[in-house]
């Protein structure tokens, strides 16, 4: 079993989820509240990372991140090391291809919030931030949870983009998904099965734990 790859995957998934959550809430909330002409187009744009095959998306991201592109050059200038084939590069790619999962459920949750509840908060003198923190966020929480679970699971399983942008470097960019993939490629079925089983059991435990806690909370408070 390749524990370092599992650790790396979890680290990546955790970071991705943690960073995407506020981004998803921000974008989802904006899309739910605002009406603007190009809104449908923005919504469609957000779904696009799903449409390309991951390896192909990875290839284009590789082009965009690499030292020959402006983005890559700026990054290298600021941070002092290349973006591609680094954990940071993986993370950035991961953020991009998980965007649809992070935004959509949150947007829907915000859309189904009754308007008068926010208005009531304002009339009670609650600032926008307090309204968000104490009223809106708890009420859209299940949507955020969906977004988080989808993002987390999808990051664990993704390997096309990761392989391309990260380069399968053990201990640095080799995730558990790639590691299992390597085993399958090498016809090491038993090792692959073992690793898959561990990954599945682990993910199952994590996700069901999240749901159990959430369902507890809701059966206590119904929200």
């Amino acid at each position, binding site marked *: 079993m390749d524990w370092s790859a599992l650790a790396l995957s979890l680290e990546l998934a955790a970071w991705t989820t943690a960073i995407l959550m506020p981004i998803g809430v921000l974008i989802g909330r904006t899309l739910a509240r605002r009406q603007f002409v190009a809104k449908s187009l923005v919504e469609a744009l957000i779904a696009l990372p799903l449409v390309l095959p991951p390896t192909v998306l990875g290839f284009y991201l590789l082009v965009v991140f690499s030292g020959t592109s402006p983005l890559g050059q700026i990054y290298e200038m600021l941070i002092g090391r290349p973006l591609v084939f680094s954990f940071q590069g993986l993370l950035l790619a991961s953020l991009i291809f998980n965007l649809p999962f992070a935004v959509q459920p949150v947007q829907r949750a915000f859309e189904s919030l*009754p308007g*008068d*509840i926010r*208005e*009531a*908060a*304002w*009339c*009670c*003198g*609650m*600032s*926008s931030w307090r309204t968000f923190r*104490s*009223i809106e966020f*708890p*009420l859209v929480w299940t949507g955020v949870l969906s977004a988080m679970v989808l993002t987390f699971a999808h990051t664990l399983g993704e390997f096309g983009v990761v392989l391309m942008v990260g380069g399968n470097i053990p201990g640095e960019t080799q995730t558990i998904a790639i590691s299992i993939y390597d085993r399958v490629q090498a016809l090491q079925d038993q090792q692959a099965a073992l690793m898959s089983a561990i990954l599945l059991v682990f993910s199952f435990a994590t996700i069901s734990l999240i749901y159990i806690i959430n369902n507890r909370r809701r059966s206590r*408070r*119904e*929200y």
Partner: protein
Amino acid sequence: MNTNNTGGLHVHLEQATPIYLDAQFHCATGELIVLVGPSGSGKSTILRCIAGLTIPKQGLVRFNETAWLDTDLGIHLAPQKRSVGMVFQHYALFPHLSALDNITVVLGETSRVHREERARELLELVNLQGLESRRPEELSGGQQQRVALARSLARDPDVLLLDEPFSAVDQITRRKLQLELARLRQQLKMPIVLVTHDLDEACILADRMCVLHHGRSLQAGAPADVTSRPDSDLVARLVGLTNLFDGEVIDHKSEPKITLLCWANHTLECRHRPEIRPGQPVSWIIPPQQVILHRRDRPSRGERENPVHGVIRDFVVLGGDVSITMFVEDNPDLPLSLTLSSHVAYRNHLGMGEHITVSLLAHGIHLMPQR
């Protein structure tokens, strides 16, 4: 759009769409103004404009020296900055929070203990002790409404906006809350705008009453004035007055000072209104309590004034009172109501179909020129 009124809340709203508005009123500090009007006349919309939740096309909302809204100057203060306490018609409680937390959450940044204490106080004020930990969906309609009322007071608002705040509670609780409100008013000295459909409530609580119809404010004044001397037959109808008829002024007399009115083959003596020129068609009203029965057992005072005959067509016992409708001269187009103590009705053997004579007390007749 300017006003010389200072102090209190000044409201002047105008728009054509989507909801027609042409309303104007003033509510001084410590004053309670009640908005009345039929369902859909724009009462909630006006409260929303004051709170800053709706922005009218044209308008001015000023509290003391501060303009909250001035469309001419492009001023539009955010709702959070307006320091209003509002009870929404549908309560708009926070569904995920307990009754207590619905209140603590709006209390500023003092300590948790402090906030809970204050919230408990407020819940006690509205008779909800013991239900602090219930969420809105575990409360009955009236209990929810009372949480909303408590919440509106939590931030010590400068202006209180109440949209039918007692509509879902029983009369005993309602009376208690009305008393609390009256007490608070004296104590806190803020303008209060109250929407209610209960005219008794309006009369008990209000310093001023503003009558709305299709978004337009028709008349504002002391409730007793509005209900006894409405400006028009429309206002009379809107504040629920019965005994509304048409007639024509024929003359004015100076000794005693009375005005003579022609109505259904009668000539009625009325309260003196010299400003109405003879020949002018008017609407007129008389309160049921100013219609005096000519008793069989003994004459009462005032029987000289405007005697009218008719037949009883409706006889409803309400508590200890009897509400009687008679058709004047058997004419179903002229239904006249009067109220009597039930013991008087009983002693005079009144009942459906009986013929009676009544007097319309002259000083109770109010004339309203027709446009």
